[in-house]
C-alpha cells in the first residue's frame, strides 16, 4: 500500500460532509418525526414547520454535496455503491420528493384535508428516511459482497440473517436504522424545543426525554455487536487507540443531552446531540478506514482510499476550490441561521 495522504484527507472530508448532513438535515428530519406528536393545533404545526421551513432545503444540499464530493474523490465507490444499493436509493429519492413537496406545498392551500395530508406525508417520509439513512450506514459498516470487479448488487431483504450474500435489510442494519430513528427523533425534538415556545416546546422536551432511552439502549447494543459484525473496526481501535476520542465524544454527547435537557437547557442539549451524531459517525469512519466500502466476502476486494480514488492531480486541484468554497458555505449558513430562524 502506497502512502495516500491526499486520498486520506478526502476520506476525512467525505466523512465531514456526511456528518454535516446528518447534523443539519438530521434535525429537520427529526422535527418531521415528532411533528404529529408535539404539535396538535394548526398554529402549533405551523410553528414546527416555520422552524425548519427556511433551512431544510439548504440542509438537504449537504446530502447532494456529499454525493458530489464522493463522486469526485472516490468515483469507484460512488459508482459501485449507488448501483449496488439501487433499490433502497431510489426509494430514498421518492421519499425525499414526497417530503420536499409536503414541506413546500403544505401551506399553499387552506383546507382541512390538505393540511393533515401533508403533515402525515412529512412525518412518515421523515421517519422512513431516518431509518433508511441508518440502515445505509449499517450496510457500509457491515460490508457488501464486493468481488474483484468492484461491483455488487443487493436485494432489499432476503431472510434478515447476517450472511455474506447479504441484503440491504438484515437484523443488524435494521438495528442501526432504528438507532438512527431514535437519535434523529431526539435531535429533532431538541431543535423544536429550542425554536418554539409553550406547549410545543414542552412536548418536544418530553419526546426527547423518552426517545433518549431508545438511543441509550441501541447505542449500548451497537458497542457490543459492531466489533463482531465488522472485526476490522475492532482492529483499528486496537492499533490506534487515540481513535477512542470519537466514541468518547459520542458518549459525552449522549449523556450531555440527557442532563442538559433535564435541566431545561434546550440549546445545550441540542448541541450535545450534534456531538453525539458527529461522534457516532466519526467513530464509524475511523473504524472503517482505509475502507470506504468494505467487502464481506473478499476483504481484499473492499474499496479503500488506495484503490478507489480519483487521480492525484484532480484531488489536489479539488482542495484549492473545496476549502474556500466551504468557507463561503459557512458564511451563508451563519447568515441564514442568524437572520432567518
Amino acid at each position, binding site marked *: 500500500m502506497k502512502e495516500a495522504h491526499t486520498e486520506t484527507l478526502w476520506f476525512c472530508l467525505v466523512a465531514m460532509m456526511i456528518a454535516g448532513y446528518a447534523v443539519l438535515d438530521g434535525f429537520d428530519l427529526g422535527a418531521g418525526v415528532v411533528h404529529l406528536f408535539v404539535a396538535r393545533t394548526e398554529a402549533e404545526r405551523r410553528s414546527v414547520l*416555520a422552524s425548519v421551513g427556511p433551512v431544510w432545503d439548504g440542509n438537504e444540499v449537504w446530502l447532494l454535496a456529499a454525493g458530489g464530493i464522493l463522486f469526485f474523490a472516490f*468515483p469507484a465507490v*460512488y*459508482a459501485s455503491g449507488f448501483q449496488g444499493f*439501487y433499490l433502497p*436509493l431510489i426509494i430514498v429519492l421518492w421519499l425525499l420528493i*414526497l417530503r420536499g413537496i409536503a414541506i413546500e406545498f403544505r401551506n*399553499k392551500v387552506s383546507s382541512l384535508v390538505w393540511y393533515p395530508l401533508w403533515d402525515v406525508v412529512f412525518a412518515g417520509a421523515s421517519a422512513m428516511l431516518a431509518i433508511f439513512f441508518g440502515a445505509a450506514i449499517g450496510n457500509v459498516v457491515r460490508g457488501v459482497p464486493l468481488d474483484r470487479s468492484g461491483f455488487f448488487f443487493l436485494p432489499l431483504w432476503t431472510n434478515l440473517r447476517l450472511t455474506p450474500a447479504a441484503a440491504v435489510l438484515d437484523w443488524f442494519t435494521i438495528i442501526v436504522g432504528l438507532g438512527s430513528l431514535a437519535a434523529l427523533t431526539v435531535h429533532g425534538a431538541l431543535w423544536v424545543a429550542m425554536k418554539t415556545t409553550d406547549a410545543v416546546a414542552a412536548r418536544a422536551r418530553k419526546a426527547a426525554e423518552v426517545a433518549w432511552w431508545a438511543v441509550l439502549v441501541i447505542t449500548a447494543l451497537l458497542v457490543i455487536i459492531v466489533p463482531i459484525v465488522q472485526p476490522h473496526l475492532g482492529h483499528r481501535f486496537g492499533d490506534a487507540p487515540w481513535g477512542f476520542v470519537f466514541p468518547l465524544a459520542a458518549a459525552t454527547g449522549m449523556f450531555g443531552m440527557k442532563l442538559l435537557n433535564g435541566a431545561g437547557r434546550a440549546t445545550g442539549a441540542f448541541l450535545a446531540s450534534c456531538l453525539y451524531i458527529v461522534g457516532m459517525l466519526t467513530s464509524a469512519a475511523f473504524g472503517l478506514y482505509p475502507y470506504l466500502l468494505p467487502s464481506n466476502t473478499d476483504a481484499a476486494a473492499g474499496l479503500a482510499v488506495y484503490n478507489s480514488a480519483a487521480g492525484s492531480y*484532480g484531488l489536489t486541484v479539488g482542495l484549492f476550490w473545496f476549502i474556500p468554497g466551504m468557507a463561503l458555505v459557512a458564511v451563508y449558513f451563519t447568515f441564514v441561521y442568524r*437572520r432567518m430562524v
Partner: protein
Amino acid sequence: MDALTVHRLHFAFTAVFHYLFPQLTMGLALLLVILKTQALRTGQECYNHAARFWGRIFGINFAMGVVTGIPMEFQFGTNWAFFSRASGGVIGQTLAMEGVFSFFLESSFLGAFLFGERRLGPRLHWLSALLVFLGAWLSGFFIIATNAWMQHPVGYQLLPDGRFALASFWALLLNQWAWWQYMHTMTASVVTASVVMAALGAFYLLTRQHFEYGRMFVAMGVTAGLIASCILIFPTGDAQGRNIAYDQPVTLAAMEGLFTNERGAPLMLVGQPNMSEKRLDNPIYLPRVLSFLTFRRWKAEVNGLDAFPEDRWPDNVPLLYFAYHIMAGLGTIFVAVLALAACMLWRGRLYDTPLLLWALMLLAPFPYIATTAGWVTAEVGRQPWVVYGLMRTAVGSSVEVSAGNAIFTLIGFAGMYSLLAVLFLFLLYLEVQRGPEAAVDEHGAANESESGSAPAGD
C-alpha cells in the same frame, strides 16, 4: 426491452421532466433581479408586488426543480455506474463544484428572498435576489461544463484501466463547447421565463383583471424575450452549430438530414428522413445555405452521413433530425412573434391588440418544447457515445441493475412525476388566481384564510 434501453429512457424521462423547472427559474432569477432593481431605483411598490408574485411562482418551480433534481445527481451512479466509475475523476470535479458553489448559495438565499423581505430590508432583500440569481446561473454553468465534457472531452488523460483522470482543471472549465453551450442554454431559459411572463400578462389583460401588472408583465416579457431570442439564434446558436460541424460532423449531417456529401449543401426546412432509402423525403430547402452557415462559404463541401461509417452515426437519426428542426423552427417563430409584439409595444398599441395578446398567451408552452427538443438534439446527437469518441453509451450503464428493476423504478418515477405535475399545475393556477396584489404571509399562505396564525420561528 433490454436493460440499456430502459436505463436510457430512465435518464431521458427524469432529465426532461426535471428541466421543465430550472429553465424557468434560471431565467426568472434574472427577471426578479431586474424587478427588485427597479423597485430599489424607482421606489414604486408595484415592482415589489410583482417581485413577490413572481417569487411565489419561482418558489413553486424551485421546489419542483429541487425534488426532481436530486434524482439526477443519484442516477449517474445508480443507472450509469460504469460511466461514473470511468469519468468520475473528471466530471466529478464539476458536479462537486456545483454542489459546493451553487446549491448552497441558491438554497440559503432563496429562503431569505422568499421569507425575509421584512426582516432583511430592501437592500439585503435585493442582494438575496442577486445571490439566488448567481447561484442558479453558476449551477447551470457547472452542469453545462459537465455535459460539454461528454460532448467534447478535453483536459483528460486516459488511464491504462480505461478510466479518465483530470489532466487540466482549466481546460475542463474553459472548454469552448461549454461556454457557447452555456450561453445558448441560459439565453433559452431567459426566453422561457420572458415568454411565460408575457403570456401571463396577456392572460390578465385578456381576462380584464390586474391591468397594471398585465401591462408590466407583457412589456417586460416581450422586451427581454425579444433580446434573448435574438441572442439565441445569433451568436450562440450559430456558434453551437459550428462547434458541432467541426467536432461532431456526423451529428451535423444527421441533424440536417444530409445523407450524401454536397458542395453548396442546402438547408433543409422540412422533410422526413427515410432511413431505408437513405434520403430525405418531400424536402423543402434553401439551396447552399447550410454550406454558408457552417463554413461561411456558399460552395463549401459539407459531409453527409455516407462519409462516415454507420456505426458512428447517431443511433436515431429521425429523432435527432426532428428534434433539431422543431427547436430551430420554434426559435424562429419566437423572434417573429416577439418582434411583432415589440413593434406594437413601442407604438403603444400592443395592449389593445387582442390578436397579439392571444398569440403571446398561447406562446407559453412552446419555449418548453423548444428547450426539450434542444436537449434531445444535444443528447441524441452525441450518440452512440456517452463520452464523445471515447466511451460508447452501450458500455456505460449499470449492468448489475436488471431491466426489470429499472422498469420498476422508471414506472415509479412516471407515477411520482404525474402526481407532481398535477400538484404543480394546481398550485400555479391558485397563484395566478390570487394575482400579484394578494397579501401573502411569510409562510406562503394567503392571509385571507389564516389571519394572524403564523407565529415566527424564534
